[in-house]
C-alpha cells in the first residue's frame, strides 16, 4: 500500500480534522485556563478561544489559594495507589484462578463476576454507605480505596488475558518443579506486564475522577481527593471558569503523565486483553 501524494495529502487533511475534534476541546481547556475568567466564555466563538491574548498564570495562583491542592493531590495519589496496587494483585490472582486453575465453583464464579460487572457503583453506593456507617467507618483514605480493590472488570480483563497466554510456559514451570503460586509470581506475572499495565491504567483512569463516594465518605480536608476540589469552584456563582479550567488541567496532568509514559505498554495490553475478549 504505497501512499501516493494525493492520498497522503488527503490523509493528513483527515488527521488534521480529527485532531481538531479530539484535541480541540483539550486545547480550549488549556488556553482557557490561562485567561481571565470573563474571557473564557466571551472568546468561545472566535479564534481567540484557542489563542490567549493576555495569558497568565493567575488562575493557577487562584487555585492554589482557594483549595489545598497539594493535600488533595496527595490524597488522590494515595487512594489511587492503593486501589491500583492492591487491585492488581487481588484481581490478577482471581483472574488467574478463573482462567487457569481447575476447581469446583469456577464456572459459577465466572458467571458471578460477569453479572457483577454490570452493576454500576452508583446503584449500590447507598447500601454500601449504610453498611460502612454501621461500622462507623468513614473519613479516611482507606475507606475510599478498599471497596474498589476487588474489581470485576479488572478480574475479567485479567481472565481473558491469561486465557490467551501460552499455556506451555506455566506447564514448563510446573514440570520444572514450581508450585502454582511460584509459577504465578515467577512466570505469569513477569510475562504479563502489558496486561498489568493496561489494567493499572484503566483502573487508575476510572477512579481518578471518582466523586460520589468521597463526597459521601469524607469530611476532613486532609483525606479529600482532587475531584471534590472541583466542588469548591462549582458552587458559588459567578463561576470562575478560568479557575475551574486551571484546576481541571492540574487534575489531569498526573494522569496524562502516567499515560504518556506507559502508553506503549498500555496499547499492547489493551490489544492483548481486548483482542482475546
Amino acid at each position, binding site marked *: 500500500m504505497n501512499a501516493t501524494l494525493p492520498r497522503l495529502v488527503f490523509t493528513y487533511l483527515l488527521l488534521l480534522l480529527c485532531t481538531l475534534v479530539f484535541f480541540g476541546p483539550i486545547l480550549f481547556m488549556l488556553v482557557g485556563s490561562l485567561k481571565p475568567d470573563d474571557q473564557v466564555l466571551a472568546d468561545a466563538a472566535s479564534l481567540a478561544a484557542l489563542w490567549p491574548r493576555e495569558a497568565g498564570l493567575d488562575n493557577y495562583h487562584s487555585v492554589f489559594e482557594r483549595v489545598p491542592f497539594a493535600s488533595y493531590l496527595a490524597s488522590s495519589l494515595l487512594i489511587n495507589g492503593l486501589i491500583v496496587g492492591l487491585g492488581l494483585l487481588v484481581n490478577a490472582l482471581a483472574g488467574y484462578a478463573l482462567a487457569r486453575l481447575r476447581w469446583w465453583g469456577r464456572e459459577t464464579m465466572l458467571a458471578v463476576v460477569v453479572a457483577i460487572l454490570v452493576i454500576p457503583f452508583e446503584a449500590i453506593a447507598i447500601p454500601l454507605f449504610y453498611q460502612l456507617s454501621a461500622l462507623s467507618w468513614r473519613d479516611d483514605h482507606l475507606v475510599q480505596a478498599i471497596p474498589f480493590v476487588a474489581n470485576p472488570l479488572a478480574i475479567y480483563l485479567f481472565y481473558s488475558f491469561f486465557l490467551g497466554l501460552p499455556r*506451555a510456559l506455566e*506447564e514448563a514451570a510446573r514440570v*520444572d*518443579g*514450581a508450585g502454582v503460586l511460584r509459577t504465578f509470581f515467577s512466570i505469569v506475572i513477569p510475562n504479563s506486564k502489558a496486561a498489568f499495565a493496561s489494567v493499572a491504567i484503566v483502573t487508575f483512569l476510572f477512579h481518578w475522577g471518582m466523586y460520589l463516594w468521597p463526597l459521601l465518605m469524607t469530611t476532613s480536608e486532609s483525606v479529600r481527593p482532587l475531584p471534590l476540589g472541583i466542588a469548591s469552584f462549582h458552587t458559588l456563582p459567578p463561576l470562575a471558569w478560568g479557575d475551574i479550567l486551571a484546576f481541571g488541567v492540574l487534575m489531569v496532568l498526573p494522569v496524562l503523565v502516567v499515560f504518556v509514559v506507559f502508553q506503549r505498554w498500555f496499547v499492547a495490553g489493551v490489544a492483548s486483553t481486548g483482542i482475546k475478549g
Partner: protein
Amino acid sequence: MAVVEFADIHKAFAGQTVIRDLDLHVAEGEWMVLLGPSGCGKSTLLRLLAGLEAVEQGEIRLDGRVVNDLTPQQRNVAMVFQDYALYPNMTVRENLAFPLRMRGMKRARREARIQSVARTLGLEPLLGRRPAALSGGQRQRVAMGRALVRDPAVFLMDEPLSNLDARLRGQIRNEIATLRDRLVTTTLYVTHDQVEAMTLGQRVAVMAGGILQQVDTPMTLYDQPANLFVARFLGSPPMNCFAVRLRGESGRREWELAGQWLPLPIDPPEGATHAGLRPEAFSGPADARHALQVVVEGVEALGHEVLVYFTDEQSLEGMPMAARLPGQVRVAPGDTLTLLPDAEQLHWFDASGRRLATLTHPICAFSSPPDQGFSSDSFWKSTHQVHHCPWK
C-alpha cells in the same frame, strides 16, 4: 532413571475419548518413541505422565509407585516442549537455573551443573541472552538443556524438532541420538515423524485414534507391522495395500494386481482378505514372463531412486500403488512399464486388518540393518499389544 508403566489408561476430553484402554511398559533407561498421526493421543499420554493432565481411569506408575495424584513438581520428570516454552523474562542461564532452584539446589552446585550442560550443548556463549535473541535451533538447544540440567526420573520430549526447518532437524536429530547413547535415562519421545521414530527409538509405540497399535523395535515394526494401520503408517511411500483376489488351487495359485493375474508361489494364510506390498518389493523394468504391465501415472525422480505410481482398482481407499525403482530408470507418465513384484514379500491381513503370520514366508528377508548398540533382549519381553484398527 525409572521404570514407567501405564496401566489401563483411559482419557477423555469433554466426552471425546482420546486414549482408550492403554497399557505400556517402558523399561529403565529405555528410549521409547510414541509415534502416530496428530490427534492420536500420544501427546496426551506424555502430559498425563508429566502430571499436566489428570488421570481419570487407570494407573501411572513410576518405579512401581502410583503417581496419579501427584503434582508435576512431585513427579520429578523433565520435559521438552514442542514450542520450547522458554521463559521469556529470563536469560538462558536463568532458564537453566530455574528447575534447579525449584529443587532447592545450592548456588555453587547449580552453577556447576549449568556450566556442564552448557558445555555439552554448546550454549556457553548464549548464557547471558534472553530467548527472544536466540535462533530457532538455539532455542531448541536451550529447551533441551533445561531438561538435561536436572537429574529427572524420566525425560519427556513432545515433538521437540517439529518447529525446525528440515536441515536443522536432521542435524539436531543426530545430536539427540548422540545424547541418547551418552545419557542413559528413561525417555518418552513423542513425534509424528517416522524418521525420528526409526532413528531415535529403541522401541516405538505406534498410536492411532487413542489406541496403542503396536510396540516394538523400529525394524520389527517395519517388517512385521501388526496391522494395516502400522503397515501403512511406516514407510514412505507407504505400503501398497489392497483387497486380496486369488484364483486357482494351492500350488498353482494366482493373485491379481492392477488387473493382471500373477502366479503366487506361496500359500496365503487362512482368512487373508487384504495384502500389502512395500514399494521396494517391485523390481524392473523387467522382461520376465510373469511381469506386470502397468501404465505409469506419476513419476517422482529423486536421483538415487525413482518412485513410480500406477493404479489398482482394489487398492485400499483408492490410493495409487507405488514402486521404488533404481535411480537410473527413465520413465514418464503415460509410459507402459513392466514391473516384477516379489510375492514372497507380501504381508497378509485379515478382515479386521490384523496381520496374519505366514510361516512359509521368510520373515526378515530384507532386514539387515546393524544392531543399534543396545541389548535388545529385555525389549522382547515387553508388552506387545495388537488392537483392532480403529477405522474398521
